[in-house]
């Protein structure tokens, strides 16, 4: 079967790849392009480990067909930091110890960046509900939520 040629933008860089019709964006990112920062936890859209942003929308990349990336703007964990500079969310995750094993961390950070973009001053409940699609089995979420709320405060200060 002929492969589909897809032209897309990943983390600001124009990228092209070949894929099968049934391949997910997650599979192509990880196995095709070698960007393994996006993690697979379930392939059914239930765990959030593969969270990416497509045209500004937070999605589980396991539920997006790779061919759907045609002409779109894909943002992954590898594109979150600004060159050598971590974002406040990444920095707060480190300072709070908001990760233990770290497998859910890329998905949480991608999702939390989107949360704070939409809502710069979330309440604890708003953060918990926005991030309810990202599973963490190690931390009990306490330090993750604190890291996100503190990052929001840091970002508000930076903007002020």
């Amino acid at each position, binding site marked *: 079967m002929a492969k589909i040629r897809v032209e897309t933008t990943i983390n600001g860089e124009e990228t092209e790849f070949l894929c099968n019709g049934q391949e997910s964006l997650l599979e192509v990112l990880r196995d095709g392009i070698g960007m393994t920062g996006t993690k697979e936890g379930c392939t059914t859209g239930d765990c959030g480990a593969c969270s990416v942003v497509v045209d500004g929308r937070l999605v589980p990349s396991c539920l997006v067909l790779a061919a759907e990336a045609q002409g779109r703007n894909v943002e992954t964990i590898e594109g979150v930091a600004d060159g050598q500079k971590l974002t406040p969310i990444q920095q707060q995750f*480190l300072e709070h110890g908001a990760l233990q094993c770290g*497998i859910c961390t890329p998905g949480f*950070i991608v999702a939390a960046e989107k949360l704070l973009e939409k809502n710069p001053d979330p309440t604890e*409940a708003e953060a*918990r509900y926005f991030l309810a699609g990202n599973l963490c089995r*190690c931390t009990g979420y306490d330090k993750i939520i604190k890291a996100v709320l503190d990052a929001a405060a840091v970002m508000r200060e930076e903007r002020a």
Partner: protein
Amino acid sequence: MSAAPDTSDRKFKQVGSRPIRHDGLDKVTGRARFGADFTLPGTLQGVFVRSPHAHAKILGIDTSKAEKVPGVKAVITAADFPELPMHWITQGPAGVDAGANQRVILAREKVLYHGHAFAAVAAATREIAIEAGKLIEVEWEVLQPVLSIDQALADGAPILHEGQATEGMGPPVEGDTNITNQIVFEGGDLEAGWAEADVVVEGVFETPMVHQGYIEPHACLVNAREDGTSEIWCATQGPFGVKNETATLTGSDPASVKVTPSEIGGGFGGKIPVYLEPAALLLSRKAGRPVKMTMTREEVFRGTGPTSGSKTHIKIGAKSDGTLVAAECQLDFEAGCFRGSPVGAACMTTLSPYVIPNFRVLGRDIVLNKPRVAAYRAPGAPVGAFAAESLLDELARKLGRDPIEFRLQNAVEEGDRASYGPKFGPIGFKETLEAAKAHPQYKAELGEHQGRGVAAGFWFNAGMQSSATVSVNSDGSAVVRTGNPDIGGSRASMALMCAEELGIDVTRVRPMVGDTDSVGYCDATGGSRVTYATGMAVIDATRQVIDHLRARAATMLDVELDSIEWQDGNAVAVNGSADKGSLSLEEIAKKMGATGGPVVASASVSPPAAGPGFGVHVCDLEVDPETGVTRVLRYLVVQDAGKAIHPTYVEGQFQGGAAQGIGWALNEEYIWDADGKVENAGFLDYRVPVASDLPMIDTVIVEVPNPLHPYGVRGVGETPIVPPLGAVANAMRDATGVRFHSLPMSPPRVLEALEEAD
């Protein structure tokens, strides 16, 4: 090294601080490489082919059609393994059975649960391998599945393993049986104990099979090379276990197998067993190509080891003044399809937190047609504590006592004998209860439909074998190397202990996890043992490095070795040589080449014991009587850590264990259909707690030093999952007036129970 902890007079400089973990940067940027992130040129994809039956004899397997599919490079069945007999070898409270382990990976005579793998295929793509697997023809003799403890014990029940006798102690079992093992602990005079009791409570408590629920599915890459050696990259808690087990099950020389552990995306005990690697090795050998195997989430639920479902009969008696006098319990544990449930540990832990002079505990390990269980955080202990702590709550109510006061009255302390034999050394149970009592949450007001529950629990923690190597760089920085995968921040704690001894900043120490060829043997990351045992090896190796550095300094300063003391990262001449001054670590390191060469030291430990960890949890919750939905309002974990090396990650263990326990109490369970198929093999239906299900989880770290570790460390990883089942159930009782005897207390069950109570 010194046996007694030097915490009393020691001012720690690094230990107890909260540095950013060394592997953190890679984990927040996506650079960290987990099990599924490795590949090699020419890698094939391997998949298992799994049983559509829960219990069936394999009369024949024909793989010829699958082998002919274009792109298929290898197909294996159990016949490709050297046949190992099923033979249980008891080792301490646990045991091993290589024959059973091999049959877990690929079924031989029978499939024993729905989803049991019986063949594996390696092909150019995963899709080709899956499609080819469907062409494998099996002649089955389908048997009736055994799906519950009651079914397994019923007269005329189908027998999973014919001719398997019941081992151990306890009442005799005649004929073929699904009871594989019995364990008994007893003390005092039970009849006399009951005669003394003024109040007796009893009940039957049941818990379902639940899964560890790590977010990373199992994954490995195996390269079998032409010279018979092989390389494995995989996510595991124990790379040496993978090495030895893969060699044993495939009939290879262990020396030929090298295992490089990846970062590991959670394990909680479930990544101690080996599922993929031996099959991937056989596929790689057959195909002459590297083979990668990754499980789907569904396979993780169906085909790896959850923890046991259980049924516990328990009875406890107390005098009217609150003194416990007698207890009896029978713990029946589902082992899954081969023996080896954690019922032994459950028997050891259920009554041990309390002084109960007259007791008897019987544990039974029962096989049935479900996946063979694996370890899950304090294996067995949460189940026993659920039963015991529920009844203690009832006793406190009947006696009109505060639940913490009641536990304080009966709590074990140093010198008391645990129900499984040994006397406790210094332990922090009473201190932990006192701290819970003093916490503001314990006095917070409760509203309508709200309740508070208290429960305690303990885990003995493991010691086992560990080793570490410390080397000094020419700039005076250091590297500490161990063989324990870092599952929750252990690199940081290894570096902190090394830095503490050397007297340098923790950022000057690089911790690393080595492959099995580059580090000494380490038992698995499990048993809450790494900061304790591997940490001891790190401290010992660092002290040896310091001895080397002192000797180099003595040469450089031209004084006797005895005149050099190590102080805060400097070799200082003392006594009559004080005028010779001192040398910094950097100065000594710079001259290593001229004073004897690189400075490096290794140490190994094999502590037979560890210091037990006690925890007390307080759960405040609210039940919605309309929907049966339970919301946890506040949650407190108080636990004795001995000495917290990196308090952030100690708190993280407390919080994570509590969250898993809350999930177990309120939501999680395997749901089976009548044929033995798991109906909820995915995260949508097997619902682990999500962020919006939980409140902040408050923590108090109690520090009663453990005399077995030079800094007083106790393992902290497992104890936090022991109390929550009881704490939540006791809070439910407080909120609703209903005593729940079976888990999970999910909304439909809560509604049903509330309606029955009306």
